[in-house]
């Protein structure tokens, strides 16, 4: 009998918990949480014990067996559907050393750049790759997928264009999911889409007035045409041009930059990232010079550290939502870092020549297919193509697609008369033979004659400019060299495989190996998002089960797993509220109330859902100010759309009055959006749907164990009450529009809103992670995890309160799953800043807590349930020791500008090289506690100069000489 998984997941055992409880003066974890969670919202008031829909906890082995059975119900055929998703060969060295390596997948977003140089370098490789291939000046660190990147491109052109027009011109020959996303997103923002059959000679007069134009290159049909004249025509009237381009095709074709584009977007999926039934993979965006500040999302740049050495960091962060709130460039917080790292490494491993060879072979395969089909008398439409062709078969498309499927190849049925076929780097002669045979093109012996390949690339668009000339793309050709490069970068970084990452609001809990197991199985990785339903029955069953379980633990009626980030979940939820009000004839309900304590993403999402943000004040205790709330509700009674509230609050407190707050909003006709960012403090003890929520997003990458991947992938399902179901995200290409509905009859419900992600189920290949977590924890295990998380946070708060004041607490003086330490008095008394403490923690072997969020000058600590008491105590003792160091600065023992805090973090070089002239000794610098001597994390750089990097923006790989001393 194996040990229950809960005991592997939860770091503190019964003995440790009883010691922690003694510190806090409680007898049991249940007593502690019941004292912290307001009694009025407790789950026991709303449901009877034992009616959970969750099955009893499975062991790790049982969960894997069930996943194997589900995987067995998926059928991996050869995918030649295309439409932005292509089979690809993940180099095994990348799969083993990145995709399956916790040093990469358990890292957080690189907000602490000194301990994130490895993935920052990997991301700048990705940015350089995208900028080179697209021929544009600056690329960001990835987007969520291609379709959302096109939407962001549309929004960027509206911000940057001087045109007053509300029209955005959309290439009729674009991907169908892109059309669907543009339609649903534009509607909420008053943008008029003009879908236009663009040709090389389309004139400015034919375009009409517009602020932006979007071109797919090569087109969705496979056609390759020169949009330069159309782009120039658009720009001649003040519009900006967005081109969605296939990165592999760009190794052979003139770049969007050379064709005049202002913005290029797309996906890097085919650079070694499995299709995964739709995701995750990294979208991309690049812009011409002058538009850098308009880029949404994360942007890695080069700066210098305190020693003057080059060092990477996130640039221009104030563009993002946590500063700009409703004025942010986008609501997107996260990127797809892990997948961007993989795509960048695919380019590092293959290099420019290798990529060009792959592209050439893909094109030749397509050319052979065209030749063979034409030889057999089949009507291939058009003469230009890169990898995708369309075949005209009047009234026979369904029959031919079925015949190909019977031979193990999925094609794309465009309509009754047209079949689409896409070739990729995995396509073999046997696949091509099967395709030709499906069209009846084989001879009497079942053989297919392949003549010389036809070329489909217009000569005028042949790429003449170079790309990927940087040494990093021209060095690591042997697997040994590649393995060591990946290891070297991984060693620069601090991830959960080194120690605790106590980042408040981020929930850096265990990402268990068993949970990760199924992600790289071909039955989950190898499926196209638009594969026929019969091929994906196992996936649909897994999705239905996860929908059921998430509905059960949140108290809602239905769940959409489509949003592929928390921000997209927020947007989907707010769009559902918008749809609901519109359907009720309440189109004027556009005001979204947001407490001042909320994460800035809330405000940014509300704006993108066509809402107007009205801020509600918080009181001195950090809670929503009820008086101000009632006043704002009264002021906007007729226009109130929604309240967005985070629970527990972003201050890490269970607000006592949350039920009252929800009722006040409902009474005024508004809907309540409960942000699920802090659900890890609630599971098993209270449910959003019970105490007044109409809709919430959950972060599967926090509460449900999907690893952070160094800054993505995320999954942000949106859960709602039944009345909002018709407005939750649907998808025109979904295999099924039926979703689980909580009811006694076991009903299903249609999600009828527009899509928010390119793929119908968002990023399905990582859903087995959350599935396995819930399956192995069971209802009781999830409750125990919540208890352990709340216990750990309160224990840390209690032990540190005599050294650092705890800013906010709720009922009985307790915090939820995280606590905010107020460093402002310390800064006032000693001059030691939040930054100093955060960077000094690196010297002690820790990742810093969340800095200055949600309150400036504070640190927010979330230990999670997965850390054991030894690690928690090590952290507490480090914080106490740092306080003593700060006191020494205040006492004048060390100068304010030369002490271990001010100079932190210390690299090996900084204590070895030259003469030691500091007021403290070397041991204090790097071994402040003796236990570090045999197990030291050495940061590769010293403290990084943020201002230098933003004033001298460099977002591509610096030349190697920059790193020479």
């Amino acid at each position, binding site marked *: 009998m194996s040990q229950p998984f809960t005991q592997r997941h939860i770091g503190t055992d019964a003995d440790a918990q009883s010691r922690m409880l003694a510190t806090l003066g409680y007898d049991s974890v249940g007593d502690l949480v019941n004292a912290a969670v307001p009694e009025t919202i407790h789950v026991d008031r709303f449901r009877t014990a034992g009616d959970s829909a969750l099955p009893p906890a499975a062991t790790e082995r049982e969960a894997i067996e069930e996943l194997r059975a589900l995987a067995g119900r998926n059928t991996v055929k050869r995918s030649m559907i295309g439409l932005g998703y292509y089979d690809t060969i993940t180099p095994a060295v990348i799969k083993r050393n990145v995709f399956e390596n916790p040093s990469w997948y358990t890292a957080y977003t690189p907000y602490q750049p000194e301990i994130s140089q490895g993935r920052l370098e990997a991301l700048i490789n990705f940015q350089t790759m995208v900028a080179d291939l697209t021929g544009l000046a600056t690329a960001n660190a990835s987007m969520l997928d291609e379709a959302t990147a096109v939407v962001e491109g549309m929004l960027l052109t509206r911000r940057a264009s001087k045109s007053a027009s509300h029209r955005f011109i959309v290439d009729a020959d674009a991907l169908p999911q892109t059309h669907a996303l543009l339609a649903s997103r534009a509607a909420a923002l008053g943008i008029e889409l003009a879908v236009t059959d663009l040709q090389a000679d389309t004139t400015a007069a034919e375009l009409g007035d517009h602020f932006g134009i979007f071109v797919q290159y090569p087109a969705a049909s496979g056609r390759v045409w020169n949009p330069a004249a159309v782009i120039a025509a658009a720009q001649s009237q003040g519009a900006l041009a967005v081109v969605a381009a296939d990165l592999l095709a760009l190794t052979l074709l003139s770049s969007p930059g050379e064709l005049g584009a202002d913005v290029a977007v797309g996906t890097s999926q085919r650079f070694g990232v499995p299709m995964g039934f739709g995701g995750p993979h990294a979208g991309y965006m690049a812009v011409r010079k002058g538009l850098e*500040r308009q880029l949404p999302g994360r942007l890695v740049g080069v700066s210098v550290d305190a020693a003057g050495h080059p060092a990477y960091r996130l640039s221009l*962060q*104030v563009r993002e939502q946590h*500063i*700009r709130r409703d004025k942010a460039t986008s609501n997107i917080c996260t990127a797809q870092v892990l997948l961007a790292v993989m795509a960048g490494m695919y380019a590092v491993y293959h290099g420019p020549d290798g990529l060009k060879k792959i592209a050439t072979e893909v094109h030749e395969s397509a050319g052979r297919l065209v030749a063979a089909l034409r030889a057999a008398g089949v009507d291939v439409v058009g003469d230009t193509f890169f990898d995708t062709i369309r075949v005209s078969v009047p009234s026979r498309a369904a029959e031919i697609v079925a015949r190909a499927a019977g031979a193990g190849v999925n094609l794309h049925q465009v309509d009754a008369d047209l079949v689409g076929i896409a070739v990729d780097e995995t396509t073999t002669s046997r696949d091509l033979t099967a395709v030709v045979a499906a069209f009846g093109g084989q001879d009497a012996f079942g053989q297919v004659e392949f003549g010389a390949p036809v070329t489909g690339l217009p000569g005028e668009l042949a790429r003449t400019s170079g790309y990927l000339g940087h040494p990093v793309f021209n060095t690591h050709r042997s697997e040994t060299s590649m393995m060591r490069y990946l290891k070297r970068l991984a060693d620069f970084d601090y991830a959960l495989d080194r120690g605790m990452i106590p980042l408040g609001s981020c929930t850096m809990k265990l990402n268990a190996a068993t949970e990760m197991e199924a992600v790289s199985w071909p039955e989950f990785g190898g499926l196209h998002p638009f594969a026929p339903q019969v091929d994906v029955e196992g996936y649909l069953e897994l999705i239905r089960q996860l929908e059921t379980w998430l509905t059960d633990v949140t108290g809602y009626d239905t769940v959409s797993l489509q949003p592929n980030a928390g921000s997209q979940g927020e947007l989907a939820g707010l769009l559902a509220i918008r749809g609901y009000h519109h359907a009720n004839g309440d189109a004027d309900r556009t005001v979204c109330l947001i407490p001042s304590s909320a994460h800035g993403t809330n405000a940014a999402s509300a704006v993108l859902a066509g809402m107007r943000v009205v801020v509600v004040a918080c009181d001195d205790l950090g809670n929503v100010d009820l008086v101000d709330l009632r006043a704002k509700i009264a002021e906007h009674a007729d226009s109130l759309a929604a309240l967005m509230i985070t629970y527990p609050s972003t201050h890490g407190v269970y607000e006592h009055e949350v039920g009252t707050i929800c009722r006040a909003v409902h009474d005024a006709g508004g809907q309540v959006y409960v942000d699920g960012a802090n659900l890890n403090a609630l599971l098993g003890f209270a449910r959003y749907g019970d105490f007044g929520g109409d809709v919430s997003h959950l972060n599967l990458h926090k509460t449900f164990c999907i690893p952070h991947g160094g800054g993505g992938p995320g999954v942000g399902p949106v859960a709602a009450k039944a009345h909002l179901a018709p407005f939750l995200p649907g998808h025109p290409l979904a295999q099924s529009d039926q979703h689980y509905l909580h009811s006694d009859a076991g009903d299903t419900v249609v999600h009828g809103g527009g899509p928010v992600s390119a793929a119908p189920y968002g990023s399905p290949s990582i859903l087995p992670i959350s599935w396995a977590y819930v399956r192995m924890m069971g209802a009781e295990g999830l409750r125990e995890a919540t208890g352990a998380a709340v216990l750990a946070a309160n224990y840390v708060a209690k032990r540190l309160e005599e050294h650092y004041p705890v800013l906010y607490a709720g009922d009985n003086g307790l915090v939820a799953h995280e606590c905010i330490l107020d460093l402002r008095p310390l800064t006032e008394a000693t001059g030691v800043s939040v930054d100093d403490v955060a960077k000094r923690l690196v010297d002690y072997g820790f990742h810093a807590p969340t800095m*200055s969020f949600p309150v400036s000058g504070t640190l927010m600590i979330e230990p999670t349930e997965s850390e054991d008491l030894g690690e928690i105590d090590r952290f507490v003792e480090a914080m106490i020791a740092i306080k003593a160091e700060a006191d020494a600065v205040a006492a004048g023992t060390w100068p304010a500008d030369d002490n271990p805090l001010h100079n932190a973090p210390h690299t090996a070089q900084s204590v070895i090289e030259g003469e030691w002239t500091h007021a403290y000794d070397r041991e204090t610098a790097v071994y402040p506690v003796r236990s570090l001597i045999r197990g030291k994390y050495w940061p590769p750089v010293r403290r990084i100069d*943020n*201002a230098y990097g*933003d*004033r001298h923006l460099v977002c591509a790989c610096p030349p190697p000489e920059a790193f020479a001393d």
Partner: protein
Amino acid sequence: MADKTELQYTAEHEWVLVDGDTALVGITAYAADKLGDVVFVELPAVGSSVAAGTVVGEIESTKSVGELFAPVNGTVVETNDAVVDSPELVNSDPFGAGWLLKVSFTELPTLLSYSEYSALVGE
């Protein structure tokens, strides 16, 4: 650097140096200090008309974004190119080389005196 006591001020932490019918505008040392290291300055186009109290530009630091308000109704006659190229001038010399724009006006609203502004920021 202008004599701080001779300048007029706004509650948005801007200083105004009046010379005939033009106003030279910058942000105060207090504001620059609160913003932190300024990395980017966006100023209105020369020739554009501005209305007192409205946002006409942005001052971005590594940790925050400050809005630049027009202190008077008028027309922008000059902007400081040097500060666009070297935003750190806002920090190093807010009352001098870090000036932001010059506006011509017909009527000057009531602004704060040095002592009134000093009281506002508690100095």
